[in-house]
């Protein structure tokens, strides 16, 4: 950790730890996925926590004379009962996990075959580690449990406070007293001796998570999810080594329990690319373990692209935040990837097609390589105010896709028509607008992001407005969460929120409600990053449609595959199915024929996916504004 880069997580330490411990006690970090697994984990967690006390009592019992007389009465009975029950909890829980890891072997525990693995991991290190840890827990708890049954046999009968041990009792009643005595000793030594034996292995094993996870959770990032860390050293941005990562991201490797939850939700892994956020953390850990002595010197400076993650994997990430959100121990594999990208881009190592797009963003201010003057082409015949010339209540930051992309501009026009019909005083800044730079930052081009942001901020300074509105969640995120650090502080509102406001205030009258049902896709940068889940749903329901949720919804939403700059990159050769196509199938599986989006990029992604997956006839992709537009009965103006 000391090799890592500084990061300040030392504010409000007591609160941070109190909150983390409370969350751990409630097992809250696990809650968002895998319910069955969580129940068994909870068994083990409580059982094992209680065993801390059990072990202390066992040692006292052995070494304190007359312990039996001191330690009795209701307290001892209660303790025995708990110890007895928790033993079974742990044993059952552990058997469940070992069965899962070794017998049922769910596919999610495996890595795509093209994922870079540390040699130790490739040799089955994770399974061996699971076996050692599992075996330790089984033997440790099991022998104590058997031990207490033996003690009952010695005492001569069952004890209502040791119900499960009493069930075992008949096995031992026939035993000779001498042998009994010796076996009791053996179980005691086995239970406690194992701990001594296990201690040296403990820090290297996944079991260390029970110490590191709470610390990691306590010290987690408290800045908005959508704001990336500033570059530490502008002369060498990002990092390709452990030593160059902020230290909490080095700690992540020790907190990792190798559960693979993160890659289960990862759109890149799911679609067959060589990226597994889980493998990244595990590889880091194996590297540190293998080089424990030299990590301080050279190991921490070895290029992570050699042992932790392949360059192709780095370029497969959609920066969707799913892995960070789901990780029960608060790890941030995505942030490692983004640091790697910063470093790669600085050294000019990136896919060719990305260089092209960055060049046009630099030269033209948009990712389409078009003259920025054509940015307002879609406004033709709509009579929209120029916010550079007159004051407006609402400054509409349109964003690249909504302005240039042909499958989006019809939607963009509808937004304008709805706002006009609702009497909103709004304007756009036409060719003055540059890409907000959200995804530029996420491909790692920090300098270009700053340059775009500075140009936008400079122009916005000169405009008079109350709020900024945008339909693009990526733009929304940059303006809201990242511009403040560069001096641009605005009140930013997403159109979904604005629509709810206008409907509730009566400015929008939905006189011709629609009928039928529909599903809604939560855009990553609206939902997971910025917590806006209800507004678009409210709009949909107000327009008269019945909302049917897909299995992966709200914070568990599945990325369309376009984020983090992927929309500019070619699909990886190994891609088996595009995330957007999987999502269309997911929507069909809940029996809807309307797929609703609230993001211009989603409009292009999903209209394409509906076509390429051959479901164009069965499902139509619409923007929430389409609903409002038709429920208001607006007659559009032809462009």
């Amino acid at each position, binding site marked *: 950790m000391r090799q890592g880069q500084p990061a300040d997580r030392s504010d409000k330490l007591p609160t941070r730890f109190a909150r983390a411990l409370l969350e751990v006690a409630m097992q809250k970090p696990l809650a968002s996925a895998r319910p069955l697994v969580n129940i068994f984990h909870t068994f083990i967690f409580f059982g094992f926590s209680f065993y801390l006390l059990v072990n202390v009592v066992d040692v006292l019992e052995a070494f304190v004379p007359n312990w039996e007389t001191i330690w009795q009465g209701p307290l001892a009975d209660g303790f025995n009962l708990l110890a007895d029950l928790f033993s079974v909890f742990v044993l059952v829980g552990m058997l469940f996990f070992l069965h899962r890891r070794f017998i049922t072997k769910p596919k999610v525990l495996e890595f795509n075959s093209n994922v870079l693995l540390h040699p130790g991991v490739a040799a089955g290190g994770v399974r061996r580690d699971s076996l050692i840890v599992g075996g330790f827990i089984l033997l440790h708890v099991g022998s104590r449990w058997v031990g207490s049954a033996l003690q009952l046999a010695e005492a001569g009968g069952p004890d209502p406070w040791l119900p499960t041990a009493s069930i075992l009792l008949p096995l031992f009643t026939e035993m000779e007293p001498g042998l009994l005595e010796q076996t009791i000793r053996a179980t005691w030594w086995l239970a406690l001796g194992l701990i001594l034996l296990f201690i040296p292995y403990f820090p290297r094993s996944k079991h260390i998570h029970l110490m590191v996870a709470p610390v990691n959770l306590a010290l987690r990032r408290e800045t908005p999810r959508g704001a990336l860390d500033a570059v530490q050293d502008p002369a060498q941005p990002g990092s390709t080594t452990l030593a160059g990562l902020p230290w909490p991201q080095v700690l992540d490797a020790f907190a990792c329990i190798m559960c693979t939850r993160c890659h289960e939700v990862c759109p890149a892994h799911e679609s067959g690319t060589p990226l597994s956020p889980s493998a990244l953390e595990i590889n880091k850990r194996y590297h540190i373990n293998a080089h424990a002595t030299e990590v301080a010197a050279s190991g921490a400076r070895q290029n992570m692209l050699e042992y932790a993650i392949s360059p192709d994997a780095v370029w497969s990430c959609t920066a969707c935040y799913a892995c960070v959100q789901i990780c029960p121990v608060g790890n941030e594999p995505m942030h490692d990837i983004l640091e790697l990208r910063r470093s790669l881009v600085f050294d*000019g190592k990136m896919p060719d097609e990305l260089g092209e797009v960055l060049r046009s963003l630099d030269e033209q201010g948009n990712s389409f390589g078009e003259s920025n003057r054509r940015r307002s082409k879609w406004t033709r015949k709509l009579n929209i105010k120029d916010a550079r010339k007159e004051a407006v209540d609402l400054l509409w930051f349109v964003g690249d896709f909504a302005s240039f992309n042909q499958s989006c501009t019809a939607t963009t026009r509808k937004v304008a028509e709805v706002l006009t019909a609702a009497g909103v005083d709004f304007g756009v800044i036409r060719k003055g607008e540059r890409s907000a730079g959200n995804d530029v930052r996420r491909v790692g081009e920090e*300098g270009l992001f700053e340059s775009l942001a500075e140009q936008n901020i400079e122009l916005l300074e000169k405009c008079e407005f109350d709020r900024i509105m945008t339909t693009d969640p990526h733009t929304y995120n940059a303006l809201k969460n990242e511009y403040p650090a560069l001096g641009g502080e605005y009140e930013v509102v997403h159109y979904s929120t604005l629509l709810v406001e206008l409907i509730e205030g009566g400015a929008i009258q939905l006189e011709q409600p629609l009928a039928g049902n529909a599903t809604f896709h939560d855009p990553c940068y609206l939902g997971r990053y910025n917590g806006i889940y209800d507004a678009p749903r409210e709009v949909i329901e107000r327009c008269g449609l019945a909302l049917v949720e897909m299995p992966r919804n709200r914070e568990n939403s599945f990325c369309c595959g376009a984020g983090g700059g992927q929309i500019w990159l070619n699909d990886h050769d190994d891609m088996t199915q595009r995330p957007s196509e999987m999502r269309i199938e997911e929507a069909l599986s809940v029996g809807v024929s309307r797929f609703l989006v609230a993001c211009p990029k989603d409009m292009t992604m999903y209209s394409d996916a509906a076509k390429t997956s051959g479901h164009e006839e069965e499902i139509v992709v619409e923007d929430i504004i389409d609903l409002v537009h038709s429920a208001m009965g607006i007659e559009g103006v032809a462009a």
Partner: protein
Amino acid sequence: MKIAVLLKMVPDLVEELEVDSTGKALDTEELKFKLNEFDDHALEEALLLGGEEDEVVALALEGEGNEKLLFTALAKGASRAVQLTGVQPGGSGEQATAFAAALAESSFDLILTGVQSVDDREGQLGPLLAARMGLPCVSVVTGVSVTDGGATVNKEYSGGVMAEFEVTLPAVLGIQSAQQPPRYAPVSKVRQMQQTATIESLTVGGAGGGAESEVTAMAPPEVGASAKMLDDAAALLEVLRGEGVA
């Protein structure tokens, strides 16, 4: 080895071009400039040729945006950047004279420039420069490899015919395309260069350019009669019948 690369800014064709009130030139008010794409290829080829020991020097005439251009060349890996001052940028002949004066002072092995540019369609800069300096010149080059005392260059003729030339060094080469697409210079790095690196400046006399061609009129192309889209074969037949063809 010492390689010089000549860079210049040209109007960005992504923008709509307008002719100014003289009717002889573009309206520069509304223009946006960018690096000539062939010069970008020349720079890329130079960077690919240049090894650890070699020196790649980027040169540009003084002008708006040229500093950023030179910092970008440094960010991509050029060893030095030089801006030529004291010249009124004019046609290719004047530019060739200015560059020749600048290059005469140091001994370069290779001088690379873009084969042409939107304001020099004939690609005169390379040949004129070579003539002024008394050096051999090959244009429309798509590949260079340096041999002992010379270079082997590939030249592309129209129709996809390729030729291979041996040239003695020093030589001037007009580059059509580099062996790799020109690299992207991260803005982070350009900004860093702007803070840490310096651009050398070299004053060259404003010697004349010799014979120049003169623009007498400039106008956007005539828009032809608009095309009509037909829906199906029947409509096509109808048109043909109307014309008396079928």
